[in-house]
């Protein structure tokens, strides 16, 4: 692969970080679960990205979940990163996490501590340089927010 010297490709490599491509190729928690408590299907009809999120709640925290879908590397890897991050969290913790993901993606002020709490999700930061793809990166998070706001009790 010969891409040396192409400045644009640096940005590209930043967006398609190895963590991202890994999650895209090997999505975590993509097996559907049975008897989920809540589920939601979110999609962006314009590009066809879709994610199906299922949650199993026990005593107010996420006990099990699944995220499966179809779409671009960004939406799907972001979904997979999401799946990896919310196990055992309660509603408020998830909402804080979503807020922090949004802050990072929109380049808003975010404390060192909040940023650290993102863990691997930070790999999504490269998407910032591609504003049109931010929607892809946020698809799952927006869906999750709708789902728990409506359904989960805190």
């Amino acid at each position, binding site marked *: *692969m*010969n891409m040396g010297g192409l*400045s*644009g490709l640096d940005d*590209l490599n930043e967006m398609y970080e190895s963590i991202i491509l890994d999650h895209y190729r090997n999505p975590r928690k993509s097996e559907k679960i049975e008897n989920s408590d809540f589920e939601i299907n979110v999609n962006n009809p*314009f590009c066809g990205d879709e994610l199906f999120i299922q949650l199993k709640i026990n005593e107010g925290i996420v006990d099990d979940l699944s995220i499966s879908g179809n779409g671009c590397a*960004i939406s799907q890897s972001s979904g997979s990163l999401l799946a990896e991050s919310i196990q055992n969290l309660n509603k408020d913790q998830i909402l804080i996490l979503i807020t922090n993901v949004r802050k990072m993606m929109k380049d808003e002020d975010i404390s060192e501590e909040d940023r650290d709490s993102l863990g691997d999700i930070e790999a999504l930061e490269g998407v910032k340089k591609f504003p049109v*793809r931010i929607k892809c990166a946020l698809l799952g998070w927006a869906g999750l927010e709708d789902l728990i706001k409506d359904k989960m009790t805190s």
Partner: protein
Amino acid sequence: MINFDNIRKDFPILDSKVNGQNLIYFDNAATSQKPKKVIDSISDYYTNYNSNVHRGVHTLSMKATDAYEEGRNKVAKLINAPTDCIIWTRNTTESLNLIATSWAINNISEDNNIIITNAEHHSNLVTWQQVSKKTGCELRFLDITDGFNINELKNIFDVNTSLISITHMSNVLGYVIPIEQITELISGTNTKIIVDGAQSVPHMPVDVSDLDIDFLTFSAHKMMGPTGIGVLYGKKELLLDMQPFLFGGDMIIEVSYDDAKWNQLPYKFEAGTPNIADAIATGVAADYLSNIGMENIWNHELELSKYALNKFSSYDKFTVLGDNFSHLRGGVISFIHDKIHPHDIGTFLDQKGIAIRTGHHCAMPLIRSYDTSAAARISFYIYNSIEEIDSFFEALNEVEEYFS
């Protein structure tokens, strides 16, 4: 002989760098680039003779009116239509909606049917869905996935077919529909035909008198003209009979507090202050195209299209939508990859300066019939070259490597 280098020089944007690379603009089916002459005609209007038209006795207003109507003349000449049968709209979409509102609703009832294809742009699909809902008429679909077949049209066409509304060239599959076969089929019947020329008028010779069609719709922005203006051509006897579309200034001849009389053609369909600057510029675009010659444009694009289709056939994992070789195809090629999402392809190519479109191309149900919800699309114009296609395929190889 066409001098392609000279043509390229007419388009200032083609010289620009995108992400550090020379721009390769392959998104012409979405909108075309504009030659300097067209751009300058707009500045010239606003700088030198901007004024409202039609009702003014002062010099600026007379100049503006003349230039505005001259724009209409030039477009009429391009498609060989009488000038007063050229109605300015905002775009193809509005042209189609105008026919729906002013003609279809008043002439179609629940006993009738409308035929469109399964590959229509949303503007030529949703508009008739609505007419069908309002009138109770049936909406029938001709499947052109594997190409247009007049016998299949004959199977669904009957005495109750009020309207056939069909794209002249598909913006997804690139197929060119042989309109003359359809006009022959309906000749002598009451069936009307709308040709959606959004992808044909910019790229090939289209002669409404020769084709003997009832309506033709197209957008200036896809034919080197500005955004914000489109055209509806209609046969005079139909236009004369039709109800107005929108109500207000210019489309009336006389108004009292409780009634109004409509103006003559084409003004009956043009309510309010028109898009003067862009009508003038559309005329300039029409002249620009005529000067190159629509035959020349078409032949060049056919060549590019064949070249690219041939190249695609050597790829395993890239599939071109539609039949590649047994049908006449213009310079529009949609493709998908086994694994890589069109969005990722588009973003990668953009980093190489190559602008392509990805998504459903306003033909969602067609795209979904390929078990996907998005495709990538390249589409050409006279200023594109074989070399650009080569660069595109080189980049496509890199895409495969990158995401594998």
